[in-house]
């Protein structure tokens, strides 16, 4: 499968075309085609995983995983990580060449790619199955499945790409599908506005991405990712160029992965169907930015001088995002919006991890986050589908649902625990690895940020869980458990949320993930700190503290007299609450200040120009044409040409009249002419001969 990685984008693409053209006519309206395609893709991805693990083990020896037990820091070792170099499987074709520049297509499969293949195909398959029940009787059911297939195809194209242009094609493809799927119910103005906002905000980031690709092309001389990485790690690389390229590429990451300041589109994107949110905005598309940064890590590593420690753009952005996302999650009524801000915050963790040099930790967090975030979203979808009568408003329509929807409740709790980083769920292992690496690499500030974020995460998730599942039922519907098509994916994801962390449970001596996924080929030397039990314990304690405080607050709210209704009574607290409710006024800044400030004057200017300049010119042309026409008619045609013609006719008539003088029919006239001619001839002869 590693050698046929082109199949991964091809199968969903084929499914897209089939659903588009034939979906409506098939029984099941296109869903079975998608499920079969994704199912086969998932099976193939498992094959790819197995093949890759085989490849790594063959290259390094089977016992490597055990020997990595307790091994410490590799910092300072100049050679590779003490293991053999495992090269990725590359198949590359030159598409066309022009003036010495060649554009290629191809696939490049290594551990990171294989992991992404697994995650994307699994979650896409589960979402396909889930949607059969969730989107039942939807007015654009077939179209929905077609776009899901196209999305998966684009994402996989992005993942297996071996050059930045192909990656860009996939990138844009997922952006397009995100737009189409967010605005799936475009009859509501809110939905299409949200879709447009998502598309345009990520587009703003894409400007940076494209400039970054071009800068790296001119720096490295090729679009090929391996080639670019080689250039970045080489001794003669221009640091300024790398910094510029890395910054521009990172802007693309900010846009697509919803980092501050381009995070505003993600919460609004919750207007789309919940399975879409689960697939695209939790597990796969939003991590495309992180994937890009991980893929081209040498560029970022050298560009931002991550190895040298200290502040850098990536880590700062990630850190800020963690905090602002988490804080905003506290003031949301909509359960999906809570999860959206949580996603923003968690991706902030991944970006910060990359910024401090914790590559494996970031990618591992991506891996686990995909599972539990998808689980949480699908759980929210299940709640809305069967519990709150298709509403996502926690305060008005939910509450006490654990009695009615046990499976949903328990899977949601597992997902929450994983997200909060509770031992032994998946999130614990991945988040701790980030924090440990941050602390060990000298990024203490980010360690603190990470811990604060962990606290906030636990707190807002507890709030969310309380409002949804505990207390009295405040809604108007008849809550019941969802059908198996919905609950089975939830259970599957819950299993992964529990178990996925164990592939890299360092304390237990298992570092399979790092071994299989972290690249050894063309990769900078990274710091791999030993697992730090005190820090792990600290983060666990902080998470539990967050849960405890939040639970105390929410569960015992009636008794906390002074605190109850604080934000209504206290001006400062109310101001703070309003500030948060308006999302730090960032949306206001973007839409009403920047955009309106540009488009208002621009529109007015364009209108003025149109009315006064263009219209005047056109009118002048029109008037001029009329004048010209009249002039031509009156002067040229009537007076000039007609006169000429009349003149010619008159001259002809006059000439005829003149000639008629000589053709009178009277002999004497002819004789006159005769004698006259004779006389003239005689005179001529006379003169000639004299």
């Amino acid at each position: 499968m590693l050698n046929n990685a082109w199949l991964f984008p091809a199968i969903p693409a084929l499914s897209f075309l089939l659903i588009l053209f034939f979906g409506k006519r098939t029984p099941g309206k296109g869903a079975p085609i998608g499920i079969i395609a994704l199912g086969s893709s998932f099976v193939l991805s498992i094959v790819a995983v197995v093949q890759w693990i085989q490849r790594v083990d063959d290259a390094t020896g089977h016992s490597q995983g055990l020997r990595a037990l307790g091994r410490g820091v590799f910092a300072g070792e100049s050679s590779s990580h003490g293991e053999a170099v495992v090269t990725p499987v590359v198949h590359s074709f030159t598409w066309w060449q022009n003036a010495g520049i060649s554009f290629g297509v191809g696939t490049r499969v290594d551990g990171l790619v294989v992991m992404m293949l697994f995650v994307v195909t699994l979650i896409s398959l589960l979402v396909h199955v889930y949607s059969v029940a969730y989107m039942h009787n939807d007015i654009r059911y077939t179209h929905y499945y077609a776009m899901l297939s196209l999305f998966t195809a684009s994402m996989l194209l992005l993942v297996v790409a071996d050059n930045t242009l192909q990656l860009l094609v996939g990138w844009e493809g997922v952006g397009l599908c995100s737009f189409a799927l967010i605005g799936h119910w475009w009859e509501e103005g809110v939905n299409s506005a949200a879709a447009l906002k998502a598309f345009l905000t990520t587009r703003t980031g894409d400007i940076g991405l494209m400039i970054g690709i071009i800068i790296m092309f001119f720096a490295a001389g090729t679009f090929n990712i391996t080639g670019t990485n080689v250039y970045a790690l080489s001794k003669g690389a221009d640091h300024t160029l790398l910094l510029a390229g890395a910054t521009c590429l990172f802007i693309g990451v900010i846009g697509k992965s919803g980092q501050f300041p381009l995070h505003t589109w993600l919460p609004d994107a919750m207007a789309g169907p919940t399975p879409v949110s689960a697939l695209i905005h939790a597990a796969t598309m939003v991590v495309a930015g992180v994937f890009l940064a991980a893929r081209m890590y040498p560029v970022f590593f050298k560009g931002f001088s991550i190895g040298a420690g200290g502040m850098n753009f990536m880590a700062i952005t990630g850190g800020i995002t963690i905090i602002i996302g988490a804080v905003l999650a506290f003031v949301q009524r909509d359960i999906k919006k809570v999860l959206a801000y949580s996603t923003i915050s968690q991706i902030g963790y991944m970006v910060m991890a990359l910024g401090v040099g914790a590559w494996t930790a970031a990618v591992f967090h991506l891996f686990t986050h995909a599972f539990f975030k998808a689980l949480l979203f699908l759980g929210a979808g299940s709640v809305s589908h069967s519990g709150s009568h298709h509403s996502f408003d926690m305060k008005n329509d939910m509450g006490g649902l654990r009695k009615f929807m046990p499976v949903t409740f328990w899977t949601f709790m597992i997902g929450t625990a994983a997200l909060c980083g509770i031992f032994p769920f998946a999130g614990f292992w991945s988040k701790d690895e980030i924090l440990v690496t941050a602390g060990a690499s000298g990024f203490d500030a980010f360690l603190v940020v990470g811990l604060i974020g962990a606290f906030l995460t636990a707190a807002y998730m507890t709030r969310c869980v309380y409002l949804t599942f505990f207390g009295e039922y405040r809604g108007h519907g008849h809550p019941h458990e969802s059908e198996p098509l919905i609950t089975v994916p939830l259970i599957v994801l819950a299993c992964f949320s529990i178990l996925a962390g164990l592939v890299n449970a360092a304390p237990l001596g298992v570092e399979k993930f790092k071994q299989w996924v972290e690249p050894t080929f063309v990769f900078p030397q990274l710091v791999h700190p030993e697992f730090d039990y005190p820090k792990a314990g600290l983060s666990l304690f902080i998470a539990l503290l967050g849960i405890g405080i939040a639970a105390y607050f929410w569960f015992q709210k009636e008794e906390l007299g002074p605190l109850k209704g604080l934000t209504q009574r206290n001006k400062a607290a109310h101001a703070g609450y309003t500030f948060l409710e308006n999302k730090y006024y960032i949306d206001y800044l973007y839409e009403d200040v920047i955009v309106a400030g540009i488009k208002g004057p621009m529109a007015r200017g364009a209108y003025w120009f149109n009315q006064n300049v263009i219209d005047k010119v056109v009118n002048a042309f029109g008037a001029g044409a009329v004048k010209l026409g009249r002039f031509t008619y009156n002067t040229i045609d009537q007076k000039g040409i007609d006169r000429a013609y009349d003149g010619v006719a008159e001259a002809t008539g006059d000439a005829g009249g003149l000639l008629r003088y000589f053709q009178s029919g009277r002999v004497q006239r002819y004789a006159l002419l005769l004698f006259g001619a004779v006389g003239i001839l005689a005179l001529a002869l006379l003169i000639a001969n004299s």
Partner: protein
Amino acid sequence: MIVLGANVAVNVVFWILAIAIAAAAIGVVRSPNVVHAALFLVVVLAGIAALYILLAAEFVAWVQVLIYIGAIVILFLFGIMLTRAPMRATGDLDNSQRLASAVVALFLFGVIAALMVDAYGDKEIKLNSKLVAVGNTHNIASAIFRDYLVPFEVVSMLLLAALVGAVVIARRD
């Protein structure tokens, strides 16, 4: 008595005749009366006959009088009568191209006169016995019947043809 030379007498006679002929010719072409024009023609013809006599061409002069005045003018008068020409002066005998005709005629006269003056300058006709001998009827007859016999016969045929033709043309049928 002053005896005028023969030259003087000849010149005087010539000029008298010339003026008469010229005036009569003008009268032929300008007279408003057809019959008067015919009579003016008679004067012209007679004058020319007199000039022939002056040039010692006696036979030609008499033939002129005989044929021209005696037959042709009579024919003209018959023609005038048979075509019912108005016998009185009418203003209607000149057509519209009088002026152009006068111009052409004068122009031609100028050309011919210039040519003649240029060609013959001061040449003179000598009156001597040879001149008289030339106009002798006997000599004319000799010339006709010896040198110009064939033209004479042809002219006879022509006269016959003209006679027959005129009869054919003018007969009523």
